């Protein structure tokens, strides 16, 4: 590469990066700068030397943030946990049936994902009212699981496909029963896939909106809380909540990078 080419590549990368990071920057700016420099101005400053924690403190203490936070966390962990608990056996099963069956099954897996969430959410919510799940984190989590599970299953399936069948045979011959083979030999090898499935499901739940607002409008999760506050004009509070919503997403994305490297999803487990 010539110097000019290199400069162009980096310049292009910088533009793209800036494009994606700018909203995050604005969020930080509004969150930490006194309002007179940002929201109170018609043309807000793009840069300021004045910072304060007052915005966050006010927002987090006076707008009922804790309950939604707890609810969001419970829901996200439920969705992540269910994804692993159900995706592990499902992914294993898919990897062990014939190619014809598994490709048909893995396509139909995503039928729910192809439908607009709202089409599914309305019938579900009527059922949940009847079951007493309406408004609970379990109800929201179960609905979100509909979208998360196919993805989780597919990821874990891919991981299992990369694990040679003979390792499983060997474990059985070496004296391990079915359960110990699964948990003691296969699960550690499938760890990257399991972790990726968990994190993606967790994240999917964390910022999920449609199911959350339809199934639990009164006791909201954080995304719904943000929405309510924007509607009421509490932009500062919304900004603070949005920052909180973003932090784990950034952290998880960094973690995921490690697991989503090709080698983890394919031949990385060869002996």
């Amino acid at each position: 590469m010539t110097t000019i080419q290199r400069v162009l590549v980096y310049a292009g990368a910088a533009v793209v990066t800036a494009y994606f990071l700018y909203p995050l920057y604005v969020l930080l700016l509004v969150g930490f700068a006194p309002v007179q420099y940002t929201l109170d101005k018609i043309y807000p400053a793009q840069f300021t030397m004045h910072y304060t924690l007052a915005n966050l403190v006010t927002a987090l203490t006076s707008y009922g943030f804790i309950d939604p936070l707890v609810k969001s966390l419970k829901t996200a962990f439920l969705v992540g946990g269910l994804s692993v608990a159900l995706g592990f056996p499902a992914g294993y099963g898919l990897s062990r049936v014939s190619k014809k069956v598994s490709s048909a099954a893995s396509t139909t897996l995503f039928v729910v994902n192809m439908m607009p969430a709202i089409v599914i959410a309305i019938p579900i919510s009527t059922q949940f009212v009847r079951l007493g799940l309406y408004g609970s984190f379990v109800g929201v989590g179960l609905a979100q699981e509909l979208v998360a599970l196919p993805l989780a299953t597919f990821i874990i399936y891919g991981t299992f496909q990369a694990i040679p069948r003979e390792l499983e045979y060997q474990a059985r011959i070496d004296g391990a029963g079915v359960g110990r083979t699964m948990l003691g030999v296969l699960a550690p090898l499938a760890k990257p896939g399991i972790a990726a499935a968990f994190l993606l499901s967790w994240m999917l739940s964390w910022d999920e909106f449609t199911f959350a607002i339809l199934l639990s409008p009164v006791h909201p999760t954080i995304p719904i809380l943000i929405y309510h506050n924007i509607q009421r004009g509490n932009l500062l509070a919304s900004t603070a909540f949005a920052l909180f919503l973003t932090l784990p997403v950034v952290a998880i994305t960094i973690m995921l990078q490690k697991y989503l490297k090709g080698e983890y999803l394919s031949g990385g487990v060869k002996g």
Partner: protein
Amino acid sequence: MTYKLELTKVSKSYGDKKVIDDLSLGIEPGEFFVVLGPSGEGKSTLLKLIAGIEQPDSGRILVNGVDVTSQPPNKRNIAMVFQSYALYPNMTVRGNISFPLRMHGASKDTIRGKVESVSKLLKIDSVLESPVSKISGGQQQRVALARALVRDPSVFLLDEPLSNLDARVRLSARAELKRIQRELNQTFVYVTHDQKEAASLADRVGVLHGGKFECVSRYQDMYEAPLTKWLGDFLGDFPMNFIPINSGSGDGAVEAGFRPEWVKVGSEGFHAEVEAIESSGGLYYLFCVTHEGPRVVIRDSVRREVGEEIRFKPVKQLTFRNGMLVQTPGEKLSEPSSRA
């Protein structure tokens, strides 16, 4: 006497493909039995059936006289080494070797002692704490073997365990394997497509073909007098030569069979033209077309030219009728029937 391992009328199909077809076999205690066959003949399937990874469609499998057909692999007390070694990639060498002992609930001290002694036997005691991905192919093969030997199984199954090694390492590993089997006096069922391996390791060889054993005997015996034409063709570096002969009776096709080294090149016998030459260890294998038509491979100690006219005469030959051996060596070959 009861067999150590016995298969009676075992069959196995995948879909409508019959891989193992009504196969019976008895293996004696301490025997080194080699299953030899071209790839795709069902050798691995046979081992999987014995190990319990696959279920036979019909037939029974007995270990020490006990029917284990319906038992899962972890209850059969059979050890196996896969061609790929199937080492647990997330464990150390020690973790791999100790795995079967841990699964069988051995005590910590027992495990330590057994792992140390088997790794000394196989000269891998210096890499016990290494991850299996960090050791050489030869060492990986030893770890796989150690993991099988560390148990006290009734039968050892080995599926082409040496085929992933370099030629040099393979030779020494082969000798070592034979030595260990003798020392431990254990029963081995060893699968290979390599005839040299079969010849040097086996007490008896079973040649698998069409889901059945084409022949079970000492390798040298079946090489010298293959029971069928297919077997003669399969065994040896070069296939056996077949030349049609006039049979007085006329019932079925009769052919003379002889190996490349059973001929004398000189001034008598068949006329042939050399088409190609392969040299090996000071000897020359001549690919010839006889004036009568059939192509043959013959061995000679003199370097010839392509296109050269030679004459050769089998000093030993077998007779086959309809593809089956009908007589033992010694008889003279009558004039070939070129128009047969």
